[in-house]
């Protein structure tokens, strides 16, 4: 079960108008040893509800600090708070570093890396760049970095410094959407044509060992597609998805005010893959999952022992009791999530969804 640890904010640096870089000092430094390209998941309560947000570490392994970049998202509670109110001395809670957006380091190797970053997608890529340049003295890195305009480029100066420090081993191609530059290549969005131009003029696909991509979904698809066309295989292309599936704000759990009574059956309505089916089930200890399966619903499950969490669903209305729960965390339970294999209805009406 993942655990949260306290970290002290030691610095909040404004990086752009919409982004801050936050330096953190964990109380348990050993627990926060990270690998380049990993992220931290923070939790904080907003209006009595816990929100969890993940932000990539932007520090390299040899910088001796833990640092994340947080770009403000419209309507995003956590990112807005971090950009407007977070200050040195504040305490945050985060899980230990997670993620697999990296390749193994080898000081003896001379690899050619390619990175594509869109907007704040630069954060994990920057961590990788700094780390491979310092740990693999013979490797080179080319970064293609897409932004709206000059003012929104995160880590612009830091990237310039890296170019100077690692002369000849690191190059950056900036692509700006809305500011005309001298050459066509550097203006607009990264699309298939732009990728072709990059391959013609800047990047020798044959020599690339690994490509890292982090940015908006359409950009990642375009780039991956183009990389494959130029001969890179799937195991040479590392994605880091930009977005989280979690909505910007956790919704309040809908709890029926209807009193629980002693009737011995329950009217259940289950939503799965957009389709809702209603049926009556006995309140005799049968789980909602088994009842749904009995009614020919292809509900997801595996262990049926409250351990694996495959059968997770959300109660939208009504009350249930979970007999065993070894897989869901408190905040998930508070948000209405249940393990449907362990879920016995208490109320006479129950509305449950596997789609949320």
């Amino acid at each position, binding site marked *: 079960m993942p655990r949260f640890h306290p970290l002290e904010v030691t610095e909040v640096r404004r990086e752009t108008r919409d982004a801050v870089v936050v330096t953190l000092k964990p109380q348990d430094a050993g627990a926060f040893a990270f690998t380049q390209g990993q*992220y931290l*998941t923070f939790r904080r309560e907003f209006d009595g509800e816990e929100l969890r*947000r*993940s932000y*990539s570490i932007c520090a390299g392994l040899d910088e001796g600090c833990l640092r994340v*970049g*947080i*770009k403000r*998202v*419209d309507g*995003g509670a*956590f990112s807005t708070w971090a950009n407007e109110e977070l200050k040195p001395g504040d305490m945050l809670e985060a899980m230990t570093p*997670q*993620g*697999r*957006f990296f390749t193994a380091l080898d000081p003896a190797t001379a690899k050619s890396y390619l990175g594509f970053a869109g*907007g*704040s*997608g630069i*954060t994990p890529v920057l961590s990788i760049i700094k780390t491979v340049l310092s740990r693999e003295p013979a490797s080179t890195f080319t970064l293609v970095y897409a932004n709206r305009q000059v003012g929104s480029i995160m880590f612009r100066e830091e990237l310039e410094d890296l170019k100077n420090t690692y002369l000849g081993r690191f190059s950056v191609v900036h692509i700006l959407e809305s500011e005309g530059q001298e050459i066509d290549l550097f203006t607009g969005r990264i699309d298939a044509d732009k990728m072709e131009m990059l391959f013609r003029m800047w990047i020798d696909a044959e020599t690339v060992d690994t490509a890292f991509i982090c940015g*908006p*979904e*359409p950009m*990642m*698809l375009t780039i*991956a597609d183009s990389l494959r066309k130029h001969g890179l295989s*799937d*195991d040479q292309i*590392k*994605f*880091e*998805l*930009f*977005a*989280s*599936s*979690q909505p*910007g704000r956790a919704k309040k759990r809908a709890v029926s005010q209807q009193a629980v009574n002693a009737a011995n059956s329950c009217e259940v309505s289950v939503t*799965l893959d957009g389709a809702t089916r209603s049926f009556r089930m006995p309140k005799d200890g049968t789980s909602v999952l088994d009842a749904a399966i009995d009614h020919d619903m*292809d*509900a*997801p499950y*595996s*262990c049926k*022992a409250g*351990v*694996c*969490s*495959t*059968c*997770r669903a*959300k109660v939208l209305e009504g009350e249930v009791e979970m007999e065993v729960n*070894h*897989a*869901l965390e408190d905040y*998930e339970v508070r948000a209405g999530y249940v393990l449907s*294999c362990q879920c016995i209805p208490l109320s006479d009406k129950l509305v449950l969804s*596997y*789609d*949320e």
Partner: protein
Amino acid sequence: MTNDAAAMPIAEYLAQGGKLTSPENVPPRYRGELLRLMSSFVDSELAGSAGFAAAINWAPGIKERIAASRITLEKADHAERVLDLMQGFGTDKALYNQAHDWAARVSRDDRIDPRRQGGDMRLSVFYYPLTGWTDAVVMNVLMGMATLHALTEMQRSSYQPLAEVMRDLLPRERRHMELGQEGLERLARSDRDGVRASVAYWMPRVAETFGPAQSERFEKQRGMGLRHTDNETLRQSWRAQAGSVLTALGLD
């Protein structure tokens, strides 16, 4: 990872070959199907390892004993690697291992539904008991080839961490199958009738593990990028491969 609003619907992203990269960015139904696939793999490896443990003591020589030990060990290790991924979704790893009796088997002549049994998601083939060394070797070769097909399929998974683990496991699972093939070549000379009987027993049971030719689940998982090649195509490809191995040994 930055928690920006998604720039395109995740279903569309997946349909176009996009990859998901962590438990934080999988949507609910994808999560369900992914965990289902992973736990079926974990349960099959654990049950396979538990079943093969007996083969260590049936082994006719030291080389075979080492091969059987290695297969038993590495299948448990492969289960753990995928269980580690499941842990990121909340799965309790320690309890998971204790949730079922991985060595449990039905009797040799029972027929069981190839669909999943209860909460133990192992493939049905792992419910049938092995009867001795020849039987273990034949099962290992036929199921080993099926496993390679399944792993090749999973290394294209849209869940990038799973695809990466599968790429690491593939050469070792291939080695398991090859170890079996080496054993089978010897047995084809020394215990021809035994091999034939075991092939007849295991062929239909392994064939079933690919699932029904028409499968709604496959279509659903294909839409999510979790699967790519349909059950029947995989089964025919396996059948052809198994056929050519058996033909080469004069066993067809």
